[in-house]
């Protein structure tokens, strides 16, 4: 079947094998065959981490059963194809939520583990893998087994954030957290320089669980943005607000995000958010997943698709690097309105290839304009490398292998854990297999 990732940069036909629990002893993985495969969940990663040009794709959507829930401890055991959305919807009514969730809930548990996703509360709760008890892994070269931080720990560390390359993740035990409310008390602030952003971030770390900021990547004069911080409300109506579900109904012939629309949109967005400054209240869905309200929003970048570029740089070298990167982007006239700047805390992740590290992270969308977009990326790459930062593989479709190797010092430790029956576009591009 034809599959794309969220960036819509390719649309190829893949031979597929649907995974399901009914298939015993994973005969779907044939170790004697030279064909390699990768597991595809919801296709919400942006580049080629979930794709496998020239190879096979295993579809995990059939692995969608919940196995058990312990209402005393919050431990949920479920299959890897279960959606975060299903977990949130089902458990929020019972007073539990995922402790860490990325910006979309349309991802699978397996994908969240493989990419070791993070959320707006990284400074207080770390990554997705910080809340996992164990993973059931099916390999092509050995019997299915369970790995955890205490049992087969090296496999656990390789698999969390392991980009789906250490085996097929079949089942996961994770801890939900009790929440006082599915509503959040929010505060919206504006900032007009990176120094100001930095100050607000620092001030928020202690008392606010969630922090995120939108930054205007087109403004050349100053780095203005909107900072939104939030905590779970102490009480509140449990009802879910009725949501209008919008959809980008078709792929426009040209990207709707371009030089002409960008400045106008950023200006309008900044002013509209500025008006909302101050305290407010937000349902978790609109605060955590603002873009889930618009189905197929990735279509607005037109038929050529788009790149996402997410980097993290350590604090010490961070501010000048982010400033230089924003300057490069503003000068280039590329970039988009979906630019996010936030801080990562010091909670260490077990994953050898986990993306988050203490510092500043910046995420940007770029309509695919071919060569000039790639040239801009090379200029930003240089700044990231200089600052000893790294890029997020889940969002990447083009980083140079050297940048990957430099950014991930545990790469050589990771490589022995690779499953010889698995590969992805990203593994071929960055690891040579």
């Amino acid at each position, binding site marked *: *079947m034809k599959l794309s990732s969220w960036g819509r940069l390719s649309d190829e036909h893949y*031979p*597929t*094998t*649907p995974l*399901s*629990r*009914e298939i015993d002893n994973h005969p779907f993985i044939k170790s004697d065959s030279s064909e390699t495969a990768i597991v595809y969940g919801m296709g919400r990663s942006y580049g080629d981490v979930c794709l496998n040009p020239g190879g096979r794709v295993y*579809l995990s*959507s*059939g692995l969608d*059963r*919940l*196995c*058990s*829930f312990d*209402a005393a401890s919050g431990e*949920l055991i479920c299959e890897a194809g279960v959606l975060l959305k299903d977990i949130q919807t*089902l458990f929020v009514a019972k007073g539990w939520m995922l402790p860490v969730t990325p910006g979309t809930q349309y991802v699978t548990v397996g994908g969240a583990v493989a990419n070791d996703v993070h959320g707006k509360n990284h400074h207080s709760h770390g990554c997705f893998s910080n809340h996992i008890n164990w993973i059931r892994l099916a390999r092509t070269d050995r019997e299915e087994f369970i790995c955890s931080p205490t049992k087969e720990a090296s496999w656990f560390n390789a698999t969390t954030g392991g980009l789906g390359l250490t085996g097929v993740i079949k089942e996961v035990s994770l801890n939900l957290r009790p929440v006082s409310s599915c509503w959040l008390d929010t505060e919206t602030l504006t900032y007009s320089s990176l120094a100001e952003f930095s100050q607000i971030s620092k001030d928020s770390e202690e008392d606010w669980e969630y922090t995120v900021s939108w930054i205007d990547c087109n403004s050349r004069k100053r780095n203005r943005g909107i900072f939104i911080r939030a905590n779970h409300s102490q009480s509140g109506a449990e009802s879910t607000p009725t949501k209008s579900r919008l959809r980008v109904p078709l792929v426009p012939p040209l990207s709707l995000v371009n030089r002409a629309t960008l400045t106008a949109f950023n200006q309008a967005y900044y002013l509209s958010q500025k008006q909302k400054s101050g305290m407010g209240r937000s349902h978790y869905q609109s605060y955590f997943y603002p873009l889930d309200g618009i189905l197929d929003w990735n279509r607005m970048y037109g038929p050529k698709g788009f790149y996402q570029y997410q980097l993290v740089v350590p604090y010490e070298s961070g501010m000048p690097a982010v400033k230089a990167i924003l300057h490069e982007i503003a000068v280039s006239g590329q970039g988009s309105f979906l630019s996010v700047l936030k801080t990562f805390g010091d909670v260490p992740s077990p994953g050898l290839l986990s993306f988050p590290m203490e510092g500043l992270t910046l995420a940007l969308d770029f309509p695919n304009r071919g060569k000039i977009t790639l040239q801009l990326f090379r200029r930003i790459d240089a700044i990231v490398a200089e600052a000893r930062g790294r890029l997020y593989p889940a969002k990447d479709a083009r980083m140079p292998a050297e940048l990957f190797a430099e950014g991930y010092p545990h790469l050589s430790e990771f490589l022995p854990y690779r499953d010889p029956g698995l590969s992805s576009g990203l593994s071929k591009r960055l690891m040579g297999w």
Partner: protein
Amino acid sequence: MKRFVIIGATSSIAEHCARLWVAKAPIDLTLVARNAVHTRSIADDLKVRSPDSMVTVVTGDFEDPDSIRRLVDQILKEGDADCALIAHGSLADQSACQQDLALNARELNINGISPVLFAEAIANSMVRAGRGTLGVIGSVAGDRGRKSNYVYGSAKGMVTRYAQGLQHRLAGTGVTVTLIKPGPTRTPMNAHLVDDGPPLADVAKVAATIVSGMEKRRNVVYAPRRWSVIMMIIRHLPRFIFNRMDI
């Protein structure tokens, strides 16, 4: 608590219907299937979704009339069903069935005779109780025979006629029979069609259409709904055109 029964509970469509039912309110649900291990993992899933529901697993032979009788008696001994769904089936290998008459007979039995015997036995108990909704899963394949799957299609055609007969007989009683005709759906039964078959419908959406159709006590539910239009055209295509089609 309302009492629900699913025959053929490992059917992916039935599993998704069950998820929707337990999401609405806690129910007393009996899952009837041939494979105990698979059914238990479905029961576990439903119990996590709805801890207040009662989920029971019953297994037995679906191909023998006496066994069907015993199974239905055993299930309904516990109480009358408010809602039952008959969902089992197997996608027959058409060309193998053309060669092997014993296989052919087994496929006709499991897709045709077995579900209608369950329907008869359950409908009778619903009539005695004076209430109930009985859903029977047929198929769009039952609407017109075609070369690529007429063994499966004719068994499902039997389900169609049988359900029509029951609907006629039970009109005016408190019992509703809903004939469900799914189009090709993304389920393990159709796994071989994922790469080069017709586009497959999402099983959760198909289940939502079925659950809402049964709630509204419809006689016939096509899922997805567009198949009612497609099949109306296919049923009415003149033979000289239909016979030239490679479907």
